[in-house]
Each structure stands twice: as structure tokens, then as C-alpha cells.
């Protein structure tokens, strides 16, 4: 009973945020609406007993990624209302309509054939309610079964950092001569 109430409240928050992202003319308002959506998803995670994912959702997405968005929006000075009459990309609107119809069709298909696609079993790495806390299960899964994927991801992140540093670095000779 309670979980259904929480589900609908969180789902409403998610949808309101998502609509806000599209509807707001000001990019900062859009980014803030995105935070609303991310919070709704975090509440869904708590509702499913995935507390750790909820915390990560808030720390990483709401706390780091959207803050980065906001930084870019504020410091690049694009925080003015958008001019919406002209499409920057030709054919953007028809393409969006096609994707939207496809998405709705997929959802309708899932709703109609819902019995066959949801198994009703709890997930393998984090049980819905019993057992040790999810962080224990998640840690064990990450560092045993999925350790290779985990290490590859960390290598990817290191490459990204090194790449960012190299790209941001001022080449001492070239720049002076270019001036």
C-alpha cells in the first residue's frame, strides 16, 4: 500500500521534471527540472530497497553531473531564453515525432504483454528485502564476478582524465608563435 503511494508520488515527480526539462525556455530551469527527475528516480530506488543506488543517484547525478551542466550553462553565458522559431538542425521536429511514437509503441507493447516480460523474481545481486545490506552484495558482485568490467571501466576513466589534461594543456611554443 505505502509503496504504491510512494511509487505514484515519485513517478509524478519524475514526469513533472521531465516535462519541465522540455518546457522551460531557460536552460538553468531545464537543468533544475532534471534534478527533480533524478530525485524521483532516487525515491524509486529507495522504494525498491536499493538504498545504495539511491544514494549514488543523488551524489553522482544530482550532485556532480547536473552541477557540471549548470557550470557550463552559467559560465558560457547561454543562460538566456532560447530562440525557438528556427531549428538549428534540419528535420529535427519530424525525427523527434517518429522517436516519440516509437517510444510510446514500445511502452504500449510492454503494457499489453506485461505478464510475459516481468518475471516477478527479485534481482540477483540485491535481494528486494532480506539478506545482507545492498552495499555488501554489490561490492561482492563488483569485485568477484564483474571485476574485469570494473577494472576496464577504471582504465577508461583514467584515459578520459589524461585526455582532458592533454587537451586543456597549453602548448608552450605553438601558442606564443600563433599570437
Amino acid at each position, binding site marked *: 500500500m505505502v509503496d504504491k503511494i510512494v511509487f505514484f508520488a515519485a513517478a509524478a515527480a519524475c514526469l513533472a521534471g521531465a516535462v519541465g526539462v522540455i518546457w522551460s525556455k531557460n536552460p538553468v530551469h531545464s537543468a533544475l527540472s532534471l534534478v527533480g527527475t533524478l530525485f524521483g528516480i532516487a525515491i524509486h530506488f529507495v522504494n525498491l530497497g536499493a538504498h545504495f543506488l539511491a544514494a549514488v543517484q543523488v551524489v553522482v547525478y544530482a550532485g556532480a553531473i547536473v552541477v557540471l551542466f549548470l557550470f557550463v550553462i552559467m559560465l558560457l553565458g547561454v543562460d538566456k531564453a532560447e530562440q525557438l522559431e528556427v531549428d538549428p538542425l534540419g528535420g529535427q521536429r519530424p525525427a523527434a515525432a517518429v522517436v516519440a511514437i516509437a517510444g510510446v509503441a514500445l511502452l504500449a507493447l510492454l503494457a499489453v504483454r506485461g505478464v510475459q516480460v516481468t518475471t516477478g523474481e527479485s534481482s540477483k545481486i540485491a535481494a528486494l528485502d532480506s539478506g545482507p545490506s545492498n*552495499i555488501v552484495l554489490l561490492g561482492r558482485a563488483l569485485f568477484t564476478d564483474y571485476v574485469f568490467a570494473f577494472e576496464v571501466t577504471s582504465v577508461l576513466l583514467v584515459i578520459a582524465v589524461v585526455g582532458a589534461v592533454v587537451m586543456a594543456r597549453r602548448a608552450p611554443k605553438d601558442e606564443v608563435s600563433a599570437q
Partner: protein
Amino acid sequence: MFAADPLFSTGIDFGVVLIALAKSIIGFLFVLIGVIFMIWFERKLIADFQNRIGPNRAGPWGMLQTLADGIKLIFKEDLRPDGSDSLVFRLAPYLSVVPAFLTFTIVPIGGIFTGAHQGTVHLFGHDTFLQVADPPIGVLFLLAMSSIGIYGAMLAGWASGSKYPLLGSVRASASMISYEAALGLSVVSVVLMSGSLTTHDIVAAQASGGSILDWNIVVTAFVPFVVFCIAATAELNRPPFDFAEAEQELVGGFHTEYSSMRFGMFYLAEFMNTITMSAIIVTLFLGGPSGPIGPGPDQVWPFFWFLLKLLVFLAAFVWVRGTVPRYRYDQLMDLGWKRLIPISLMWLLFIAGIRIGRDQNWSPVLVPLAAIGLGALTVGLLAGSMRTAAIRREQSDEDDLGEVSA
């Protein structure tokens, strides 16, 4: 949902709801009264440091000064600049205050943790912890809330539609984001030694032995504690890291354009955060409410120890403010990225290595030695690379100067 608290283990009835409600209200009042006290305490102590008298008119020793200031703020005119974004301008103060209070909910402020009590208190036929909530994510909640707190500072500066607040908010959010890494890494050391994320279990792990040697400040060997204290000061934007509102440079920082109670809310959030951070330091490193139980009603003693430890840190924050001059912005970034993060990362690996060595019954001499050797190598490489970078930067600067003058 928050299954760890025995309050909810027997199902939810009217009494349980009442206790949960009472705990929330008492927690809120505790922080609010704490803020009123803290503002007076800080002003009085700073006055002593600077050979002044400080507030001395309202009430005994000026203790009611904060209350008078609060009433004044409520009745002041509420201004909003023309160029501001009305929705975000009004939202920002709440985004500062709410996370500041919510963080306090995970702090255990009392309860005997030795013996059979396990930190529970018997109230109206129910066992419960003396903390508003004990979520399974525990200290991660602290990190989540401090990352939400960034929004308050950031949006306040942007929404004001004026330049100094924007600069202040960029500084504030940049420092908060940079120091969150060091903060998180030193928290991980604590979690590693305590074996749990929840604040209740962290306190229980420290209090189990009943001696100071079990406190995390000793168990994690002091380094994470120091890193956490420095990072917390930066996270709070308190002096010596208060360049976000450096008066000489930025008028008043991100809340320059705020007046009346909206300014009051930022002020409130700042002091709430100070109290909460001190409480978190006490919880994570100094055993929370644990301490010897003296004569008299035994449940009063943990609360007394908690308040005493809290007061030490509040006084320390004021002391630092009274004595250390403000850092420059680049010095702060240097300290955060080039010192604190490498130190806390290295210490985390060191502690993890020793922990694994203990679990696997490896030699208790060789493991620390190998760890220290590896650590020294890392420090050497890091220092070498920083030095090389500094030399190259100097050279390229000289080249630049040469070209310009030629």
C-alpha cells in the same frame, strides 16, 4: 524502509508515529537552539580574540542578541534585484537550509553503546535509537546532502543577476566540489575500519571496547581525521577558506543581493552546517556519545559526552577563524587537489592493505613495511612530477616574457 532502528521492528502503531514525530521536532529544535547559541558563542569568542567585548546588551552576557537579530531580519524589507530570476532566487535559500538540517538527522546524539543497550533507549514501551533516522546508506547521506547544498550557493549567486554574487557562487561551488573528494575518501577509511555505513554501527564499533583506543581517530591513525577536518572547513566555506564571501573582493559573496529573512536563511544554513559537521566529526572519529557512565541517571551521560565533544569542535572552528588568515583561491585548490586528495587516497590504500593483511593472517611486520615502501615511492613520483611540471611552467613563462619584450 529504515529497518535498522528497532522502533519499526514490531510494526507501526500510533506510539511509533508519535515517537518518530517527536524525534524529528526535537532534532530540529536542537539544531535551531544550537544555531542561536553558536552565533552568540562565535561572536563572543571572536570578540575575546580581538580584545573587544562583543554583544553585551540583550539578555545576560548578550545571549539574546541572536534572537533580537533574527526578529530584526524578519521585519526588514525583502528586496529582489530587477535582473534576478524570480523563481530560482526564491528557491535558493531553501536549498541551503533543508540539506543543512537533514544531515543532522543521521547523527546519534545519545544512547549507551556498551553492554546490552546497543545504543537503544526505552521510550513509552518502544526501543529506539537517539537519532532521527538511521538509513542503511548512513554516511553516504552526508555526502548526498552536501552535494545538494552546493545548489543553494550556486543558484543564489546565479539568480541574483549580478556579477559579484556570481563570482562568489562559482568560488563556493568549486571549493565545495573539490573538497568533497577528500572528504569522501577520509570517510571511506572510517567505513573500512568500522565495517558499516550506518552512523549507529560506526559509533557502536568505536564504543564496543569502552576505551579511547577504539575510537576511529586512533584506529585510522589520525590522518583521515586531519584531512576530514580541513576538508570540512572548506566544505563549510568557513575561514580560513571563506573566499566565497571575501568581503574585500566580493562584497558579500553569493548572498550579496539577499536581504531580510532570505539572507537570514543563508546565515542559518551556514551555522547549521557548522554544527552538523562538528557533530559528524564527533560521530565518525570520536566515538559519538560514548564515554564513561557516571553516577545518576545513566542515559544523561552519553548526551553530556556528545555535547562536550561537539563543543570542543565548535570552539575549534571559532579558534581557527580567529587566528588563521584567509587562503588565496589558488592556494586552496593546490591544497585540495595536490595535497589532501593524494594523502587521503594513499592512506585509504594503506589502511585497506593492513586490513586485508590482518584478515589473511599475513605477517604483521612485512605488510606495513611494504605499504610504507610503496607509499614512499608514490610520494616520490608525485613530488617529482609536480616539480617537473613547475619547472616547465616557469620555463614557458620565461619564454613568454622573452617573446613579449622582444
